[in-house]
């Protein structure tokens, strides 16, 4: 996966002249806008995520943060702007036309997504939830996919439940399986859409612990979340979205101790209380 993205990221480097750090760009978002029924949800958003970085996106509900994440793998179609994943543009092909579904699916497979409501497939057991896409999208053999799946389930602490069906699991367990499912595609970027918001408070910790472990292993991750302490602990960069605009982008120390905008200061005060 590392080698595959090298040649493509050369192209993206040319489009980002202001970049100084040596790491390659994993996701590059340019002038992204999106509106629903005339309401602007995203306004001219620019965002750069480097390989190995963990970026958390904060903001109050309705700020557009989930929409931004869902645009990255084209679950939402932006109205304008561009998104590159590992140097490859998603959704629009070289000729500037909408991507054919097969090609779009291939680009999507380079990202892994974890949903707020888990969205496990209820007709498949835990192991098969994890192996389904590697077998039928990547074309892996069953044996290879299952070996890899068992490693991943071990990593998220769910190997004992490999044969269980999703309906028998707790929310925290479901989400850990969903994380393993996304990892199984060996994605270049992991996208987390409020992964703990649908969980009972006592189950939040086990899921956050898994995500924290992943960040330590060097995965590139974009996490939409409400968990401030978590964001501060794992992020390389914190992005604050307000009414569809990115109004603050900073490293976590600066963001949480010395934010430059009044809006973020108010937000942090309210979250603390």
């Amino acid at each position, binding site marked *: 996966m590392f080698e595959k993205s090298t040649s493509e990221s050369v192209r993206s480097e040319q489009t980002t002249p202001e970049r100084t750090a040596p790491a390659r760009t994993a996701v590059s978002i340019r002038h992204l806008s999106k509106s629903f029924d005339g309401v602007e949800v995203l306004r001219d958003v620019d965002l750069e995520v480097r390989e190995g970085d963990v970026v958390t996106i904060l903001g109050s509900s309705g700020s557009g943060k989930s929409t931004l994440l869902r645009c990255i793998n084209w679950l939402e179609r932006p109205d304008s702007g561009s998104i590159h994943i590992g140097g490859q543009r998603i959704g629009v092909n070289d000729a500037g036309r909408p991507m054919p579904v097969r090609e779009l*699916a291939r680009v999507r*497979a380079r990202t892994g*997504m974890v*949903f707020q409501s888990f969205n496990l*497939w209820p*007709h498949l057991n835990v192991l098969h939830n994890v192996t*389904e896409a590697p077998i039928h999208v990547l074309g892996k053999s069953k044996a290879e996919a299952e070996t890899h799946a068992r490693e991943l389930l071990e990593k998220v602490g769910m190997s004992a439940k490999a044969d269980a069906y999703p*309906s028998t699991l707790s929310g925290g367990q479901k989400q850990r399986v969903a994380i393993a499912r*996304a990892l199984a595609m060996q994605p270049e970027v992991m996208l987390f859409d409020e992964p703990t918001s649908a969980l009972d408070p006592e189950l939040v910790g086990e899921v956050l612990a898994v995500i924290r472990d992943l960040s330590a292993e060097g995965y590139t991750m974009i996490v939409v979340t409400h968990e401030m302490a978590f964001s501060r602990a794992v992020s390389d960069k914190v992005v604050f979205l307000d009414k569809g605009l990115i109004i603050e982008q900073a490293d976590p120390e600066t963001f949480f101790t010395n934010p430059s905008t009044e809006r973020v200061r108010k937000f942090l005060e309210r979250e603390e209380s």
Partner: protein
Amino acid sequence: MNASAWHMLLEGAWTTVWISGISIAMGVTAGLILALIRLARIPVVDQLLVLYISLARATPLVTLALFIFLSAPTFGINLDRNVAGILALTLNTTAFNAEIWRSAFRNFSRDQREAAMAAGMTPWVTFRRIMLPQMMITSLPGLINEMSFLIKGSPAIAVIGIVDLTRVTNRISAVTYDPLPPILVACALYMAAIGCLVWLQRIAERRANRLAV
């Protein structure tokens, strides 16, 4: 009832079973195909299918069987009566099955489809691997219910001269002059067949409910 009466009765039962079985298999498949075509919302084709479903739901099976069997020769087609019977049952059950499949499609969880797309599945793989297996489970109770209705409607094919489980009771009483026993045995056989389907339907419902959790 003597041995030959029993023999005739079982033959009638077999006729009902195989003609219903073929019609069910064709009707379930054709219903799925129609549901898929309707999802594509092709103009004109869509309206024609709506008309077909509305007509098929309102047309009595007896009338449909007679219509097919009697009017085919005027178009120069010589239909075997069994084929005409199967055609009538299939045309009828397909309309109901199409509606069952279509509602399974429309109620399919958007979240799960998104999860499949996010994992890089193409629409076809998503349909085949994620949607269809679940739609089969959720539609099964409705499909089995429709199978019961088909068997309950199957005596209609007697009108074009097929000797099914109902019609055979006439044949037997023409010899024995005692119509009640064969009719009662036929009742018992129908109850056994449909009782089985009701039982299967209950199991299918339990499985479908488990999936919905």
